């Protein structure tokens, strides 16, 4: 870089700021899916209702997995900030295992619902449920792929500002995924289980 005039902008900060805006946009997308779910929750078309299809243990396990993965992701980001590679690897891999377990449970749940005739094409309620929870699951998948790519970056070169800035954004993304899950847990699962 041979820029002579004072660099008035900090690239990492700009990227983080832009990513915040993207997350806001993503949050709006989720809020619309939540609103749709709230509207369609009674539109069961004489099919299964929310009181009949959710499993207590699976939901509890999913919540525990995802919230602990938020913690381990935080620990990974601290390790990357401090350029401690071994610890970074360790925590990212723990996070990936937790996220993968979450996804397996979710896919099992979806497959089970489809098998018992409660797929998304059964009723408006199930369409809204699958779309909301499925979009969240897609976000988890994206996060998982992102973490794998981050591991590759870590393996290939010493920890530099580029990886640190990417980790900052990944952490932000992962926390949004966690926050949305809290919304799903309280709006979708809890009222279904305790009604």
């Amino acid at each position, binding site marked *: 870089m*041979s820029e002579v005039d004072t660099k008035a902008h900090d690239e990492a900060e700009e990227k983080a700021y832009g990513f915040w805006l993207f997350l806001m*946009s993503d949050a709006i997308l989720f809020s619309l899916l939540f609103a749709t779910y709230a509207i*369609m929750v009674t539109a069961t078309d004489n099919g299964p209702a929310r009181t009949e299809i959710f499993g207590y243990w699976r939901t509890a396990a999913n919540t525990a997995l995802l919230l602990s993965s938020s913690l381990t992701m935080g620990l990974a980001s601290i390790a990357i900030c401090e350029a401690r590679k071994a610890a970074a690897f360790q925590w990212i891999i723990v996070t990936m295992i937790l996220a993968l377990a979450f996804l397996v449970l979710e896919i099992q749940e979806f497959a089970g619902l489809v098998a018992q005739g409660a797929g998304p094409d059964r009723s408006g309620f199930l369409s809204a449920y699958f*779309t909301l929870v499925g979009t969240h699951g897609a976000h988890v998948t994206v996060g998982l792929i992102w973490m794998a790519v981050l591991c590759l*970056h870590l393996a290939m070169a010493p920890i530099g500002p580029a990886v640190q800035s990417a980790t900052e954004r990944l952490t932000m993304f992962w926390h949004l995924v966690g926050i949305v899950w809290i919304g799903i847990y309280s709006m979708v699962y809890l009222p279904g289980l305790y009604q």
Partner: protein
Amino acid sequence: MFGRLTEDALPLYSEIAMAGAAVTVGGGLFVLAVVLWTRSLLYLWRNWLTSVDHKRIGIMYVVVALVMLLRGFVDALMMRAQQAMAMNSGGYLPPEHFDQIFSSHGTIMILFMAMPFLTGLINFVMPLQIGARDVAFPRLNLISLYLTAAGAGLVLISLVIGKFSTAGWTGYPPFSETEFSPGVGVDYWIWALIVSGVGTTLTGINFITTIVKRRAPGMTWMRLPLFAWTALCASILIVFAFPALTVAGAMLALDRSAGFHFFTNDGGGNAMHFANILWMWGHPEVYILILPAFGVFSEIVATFSSKRLFAYNSLVFATVVIALLAFTTWLHHFFTMGAGASVNTAFGITTMIIAVPTGVKVFDWLMTMYRGRIRYQTPMLWTVAFLVTFTIGGMSGVLLAVPAVDYTLHNTTFLVAHFHNMVIPGALFGFFAGYVYWFPKAFGFRLDERWGKRAFWFWVTGFYLAFMPLYALGLMGMVRRLQHYDNPDWQPYLIVAAIGAASVLCGIICMAIQLWVSIRDRERLADTTGDPWNARTLEWYSSSPPPAWNFARLPQIKGTDAFWRLKERGEAYREDENVGAISLPAHSNDGIVYGALAFVFGFSMVWHIYWLALLCFGAIAAHLIVSSFRHPTEDVIPADEVARHEHDWKTAARAGSRYDGDPLCDYRTALRKVPAQ
């Protein structure tokens, strides 16, 4: 293998559709032939198609917009011709075809004409205005351009392969569901919207980050030029409103392709929920279109009145208030849904309230003109026509905001007249004004005034002739989107409206001639100073066209109208010794790669070629991952090249400008000519 795609997709069902397809394909081939004939493919590829320079990207956006304007306008002409002749007869367009045309007209004009036009203007002007070297994310900017182009491409190709939607530009279910629209038309509409919508969202993020993080030193919020303020507010609206379009489109796609029941008649679907989500995007969208045009008018009215903007602060606050209120009025698009008297009243009131900040703006512009030394050049003519015409449209809007009135006028041509009366003067005239105003900055020569004025008069006359009769027809009970009718009282009005459309056609022809004449006479129209209009804001503080690096050194801002201040002090073209080397992001193929993949992805989703869609999606993801391992390359412009450009421009400007040291010199000369009493 190819999903639903068979040879039946070719437009052999009607001669008019075949002609449309032939023009589309022929137009594409013609452009390709010219490029190959002049051997400019390599030049275009290196300097334009892969350039991450915000100015070039801006110009390419405007080119997309102008091409799509032609396409959308042909649709308009065909509709006006059909309705003028379809009294007690079928006219010349069968209903299926007529429905495609009004659907594509709306979709194109809003999403692929107005959106690229405003994005192009903001891209070109805003970084210059705030004293920045480029937008915050130049490569992302290029990708956004190609995603928009991919969406536009999907609409264009629907004319050749398959058919476009017949469900109107809003695509209301249940009609747009598979049960009633089993073809590919609605899918083209959905995927064009989603693909370009992703691009637009990324653009919004890019613009906000640029304005928040890259203002030149000293450019505080209340020194920001008004166009940059409106760009910021429009971008905030984009980031917060476009997810609603994505959600509505994606849900409809799931209904259509995967058997979901969001909006279907059966299975517990709720069709009105679509209207809700769509207009949560759709109403802010109106302000996304109009706010940047308000910014253009603000710049022009100050420049051509040789006065600073009247009540700058109130204009800023009005802009922000409009942006906030834009999210509170969406329900007025479907008062007749039956949400109840209280809900309708609440949204009727918010709709009337939003007219207040808009009114504030109109008075601010009028007061800027008051006692100004007004130069009636083309940009100013568009502005004055806007002020008058837009106010009429605003008043009919306040009328429609009364739910009881809306119940009688809903879905009539009164509504059609109203929103054209808002969007044509409020957005399109603004874009035309901006096009004429900033053209010399982009290309180094002005557009011909004579042909510009002809285009203006044809457009304005055509607008009044085309849309005032529609107000009357709406009050006479004519429903919109009629393919034929049997009421003889309507026909004279519809013939007048068709004559209006013909006048607009003359306006468009004048604009084409204007462009040609201006390129021919570019020596006569050349602008050597970089400041052809005696303007006030920073984008004029550079050569025309500006160098890739915009400013040799980032300017220090000491107040509003930064450039005017420099001219007042006679400092605008003072030589600067401390010029250094500048590094800029190198050109990038990413835009074309993502754009092409997104286009094929959209196309294969439309035709249910799922393996190809999956392949494209995977390729996009793989490219994203691979490019995270690449280090972005930069081009370094050596200090002596920067210094040489700076010296050449400032020398030419000092020789050519009458305004440096006394920006009001024209005004003072004119005063001196008035004989003493």
